């Protein structure tokens, strides 16, 4: 049975939404957070394990230094303070996805705190999101409930794969985000996109949402317009695509509004998002009194970060994505809209490289947003994955500028390059695609065309200059498109004694 919802507009007319996010990022370290088992996706279940990640009697954890460095880098990228001393704690609960029946996580002494992130919506509006903390922890194993509806209730048995148990995670927690209003769902999506972009840019995560590398828990609450106290929140768990995040937040706003309108209280609980029905359903009730009996992990010593280490990592940080976009847009001189299209098409890196290889900004954009994007769509891949190199684009453009080929031929050449026939110059050479610039041959071809189309020739002579296009087409056909169409038109008019 579906819950009552208000329309989004009605909800926004009465209430201000407040958002909060907990985003879990799986790191792409070679080994797990606390042991030497490989951190790899998609392998045979329970093969990427050691006695440590299986929690066998007697084992002890060791902190993965690369994971700590990743956490520091992410903390710095989010403008956080890096704690000189941070600590791991045990979060105790009985559930078979954690082999030890506790998760080793950071609790009251996280590695990074008090940051902020500027999140840009598609139209360029910027929201500043305050980051409360980013902390390190280990992932749990993966449970598959067999029989029933794929849930533990009603399942006849459950399988557990500990390959994921112990994979390093960083959890990024925001402070409550107010004032997004009607743009709250959009902001949710943009926030997750921004986190994903940052971790990819830092090279610390593969950031593939379909593999669960980035997972978002979205908190939503509503305040009556004009009120100042936060409402009761719900936490929608594991929303695993950016589109779903946007939809889930929108749904929860509409659902909360209907509940509040009915005079009922919001139940503080976790909710599950269903992409098929585009609804959330109630999970387990959650209260602040959930007792995980946290205490400092006695098998680990505190993580101590000295200033020298932090500064070295800071120096290694790549340029932040938002800053880079601002810089490139200015350097390339694209309009707001042109640049946004480039970003949305995902070809910013390619254009940058093409320009670096020797093309102008305009030419690079023309190719990547034009023919390459068209071919990519046709072949159902991302433009960046088509296999076109910046060198190919530059070479094609040089051939055009030298007059050896025209735009139309260039597009054919590109397809042949993609079919592995060689470089553009080699394709032109092999296939004899160079423009026919021999005036004699061209003159003969024009004569033949005019002779074949006497009525058209008569019309042109009579002043219907636009009819010349038909003759041009005939000549182009005869020369297999290798003639310079402009020159052909000039010759036709010249031979018929008409002014162009």
């Amino acid at each position, binding site marked *: 049975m579906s819950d009552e919802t208000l329309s989004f507009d009605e909800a926004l007319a009465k209430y201000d939404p407040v958002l909060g996010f907990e985003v879990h990022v799986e790191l792409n370290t070679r080994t797990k957070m606390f042991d030497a088992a490989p951190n790899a996706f998609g392998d045979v279940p329970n093969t990427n394990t050691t006695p440590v990640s299986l*929690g*066998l*009697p*007697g084992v*002890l954890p060791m902190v993965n230094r690369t994971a700590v460095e990743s956490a520091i880098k992410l903390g710095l990228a989010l403008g956080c303070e890096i704690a000189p001393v941070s600590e791991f704690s045990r979060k*105790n609960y009985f559930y078979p996805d954690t082999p*030890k029946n506790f998760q080793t996580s950071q609790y009251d002494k996280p590695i990074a705190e008090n940051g902020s992130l500027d999140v840009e919506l598609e139209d360029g509006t910027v929201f500043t999101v305050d980051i409360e903390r980013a902390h390190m922890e280990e992932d749990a194993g993966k449970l598959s409930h067999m029989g029933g509806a794929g849930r533990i209730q009603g399942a006849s048995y459950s399988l557990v794969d500990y390959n994921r148990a112990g994979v390093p995670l960083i959890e990024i927690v925001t402070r409550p985000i107010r004032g997004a209003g009607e743009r709250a769902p959009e902001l949710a999506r943009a926030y997750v996109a921004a986190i994903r972009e940052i971790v990819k840019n830092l090279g610390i995560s593969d950031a593939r949402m379909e593999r669960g590398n980035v997972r978002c828990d979205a908190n939503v609450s509503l305040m009556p317009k004009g009120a100042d106290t936060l409402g009761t929140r719900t936490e929608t768990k594991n929303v695993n695509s950016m589109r779903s995040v946007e939809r889930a937040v929108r749904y929860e706003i509409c659902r909360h509004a209907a509940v509040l309108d009915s005079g009922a209280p919001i139940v503080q609980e976790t909710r599950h998002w269903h992409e098929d029905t585009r609804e959330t359903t109630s999970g387990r009730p959650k209260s602040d009194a959930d007792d995980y*009996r946290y*205490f400092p992990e006695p*098998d680990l010593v505190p993580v101590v970060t000295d200033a020298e280490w932090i500064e070295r990592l800071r120096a290694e940080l790549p340029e932040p994505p938002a800053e880079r976009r601002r810089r490139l847009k200015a350097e390339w001189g694209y309009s707001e809209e042109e640049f946004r299209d480039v970003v949305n098409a995902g070809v910013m890196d390619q254009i940058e490289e093409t320009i670096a290889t020797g093309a102008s900004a305009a030419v690079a954009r023309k190719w990547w947003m034009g023919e390459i994007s068209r071919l990519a769509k046709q072949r159902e891949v991302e433009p960046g994955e088509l296999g076109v190199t910046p060198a190919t684009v530059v070479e094609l453009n040089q051939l055009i500028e030298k007059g050896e080929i025209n735009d139309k031929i260039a597009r054919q050449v590109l397809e042949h390059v993609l079919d592995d026939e060689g470089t553009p110059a080699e394709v032109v050479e092999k296939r004899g695609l160079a423009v026919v610039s021999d005036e004699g041959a061209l003159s003969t071809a024009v004569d033949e065309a005019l002779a074949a189309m006497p009525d058209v020739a008569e019309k042109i002579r009579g002043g219907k200059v636009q009819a010349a296009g038909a003759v041009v087409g005939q000549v182009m056909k005869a020369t297999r498109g290798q003639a310079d169409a402009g020159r052909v038109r000039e010759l036709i008019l010249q031979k018929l004694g008409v002014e162009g």
Partner: protein
Amino acid sequence: MSRNELVQLSAAAAAAKLAAGEVSSEELTRAHLEHIASTEGEALDAADRSRGTSGLNSFLHVAQEEALATARGVDASRAAGDDLHPLAGVPVAVKDNIVTRGMPTTAASRMLEGWLSPYDATVVAKLREARMPILGKTNLDEFAMGSSTEHSAFGATRNPWDLDRIPGGSGGGSAAAVAAFQAPLALGSDTGGSIRQPAAVTGSVGVHPTYGSVSRYGAIAMASSLDQIGPHARTVRDAALLHEVLGGHDPRDATSLKDPVGPYAAQAAEGAAEGGLRGMRVGVVKELLDAEGIQAGVSQRFRESLEALRAAGAEVLEVSLPNLRYSLGAYYLIMSSEVSSNLAKYDGVRFGSRTLPEDGPVTIERVMAATRAAGFNPEAKRRIILGTYALSAGYYDQYYGAAQKVRTLVMRDFEQAFGQVDVLVSPTSPTTAFPVGEKVEDPLAMYLNDIATIPVNLAGVPAISVPGGLAPENGLPVGVQFVAPVREDARLYRAAAGLEAALEAEWGGPLLDRLPSTESLISARTEGAAK
């Protein structure tokens, strides 16, 4: 050499005879295995192992074939002129809460019955590297929780001085095995005195090394911040030799120290030499001297030990550790809190035994509950419940948090005391071995037995227990404990060896020379039972 002569060799003496080719490791190992067979006793109830045996019951598993194979390998290498570790071929026993490949590890709990570890503990790997034949796995209180070894799921171990008495705990199996000549050396684990108190009540030597100086990887965790693996032996020098095998940094243990190992045996030799204690300042812990419930004979032998120390040239002073009296309370909160978390993994899902609910639905929660209800003994449950409570939201500061503050105060007390003296000394345990069954229903009385050993674990400092003689009232062993500053384990060996030498000179030989024959005790007892 006869079997009796072979098993009575100290590890150092056995190593010398092996090196000289006077005896083979196979002979030596076989002698120990035969002695184990003749002293372990018969099962009292073949269907119920928890009833124990008519003898010592110090071993839960005897690894006869593996031990002999290792011994033969060492003999062959020696014959081929290979370089060997000084202790190569000297047999050793391993407490059964330390994991071993190829032989069971149960922690004396039904929970792990039938489980085989796929890996070796770091200390076991070191024994194998030194090529010391592993005789088997020794009995303990379940998951090392207890002071009597009565809490073993596989029957109590008996004290070789009197089979009706406890051998201490939790390492009663290792201590009894060493004292009764079943093994020259054994590994133990010490969380609140589990090596030292059994050593004291069996007349043997036991060492709690500086926390972090011996790897804990592969020791089944009881209370991680207090657990420490250490040696059991009959002499201070033997303990030092085994400690040198076990020590050193382990990249698998985050709490492992990077200090160099030793020299322990050399310090023991110096301490035992003429004038070895000259100038050493020994502090008597005032609060432990007249502790409540201290047995008269323990007190008497302890004071005689102080005289022996003075006679050997040590300066004996009295020092105060005012916060010591809060140790027991703090220990029971920290220990039980860590226990409640460390023992959570025993739920029947992944390994060990599984118990299904007697009736009703078979859900994961109910299987976990039934497994834990059946798999843990009352002592384990008592500690899990106490620890779960102490860590609960709203109680954390009051219990766990406060206990950690007390721990800091105890550490400071030790630091202050070591500003005045080189080592501290006290009785190891306030009483001699008590009769089996006497305190098993009175946990508080049992806990009080550890009053002198527990502060050492809270502070992470090294400590040793050495024989102090037999209490006049009952003829049972008394232990003397030395404590040294963190990372000064070598100083410990020097002091303890000095006292050992002085007392043995008075006694005319080692205390264990006076141990009654275990075989005679068993037959007397069996005959008694038959009448």
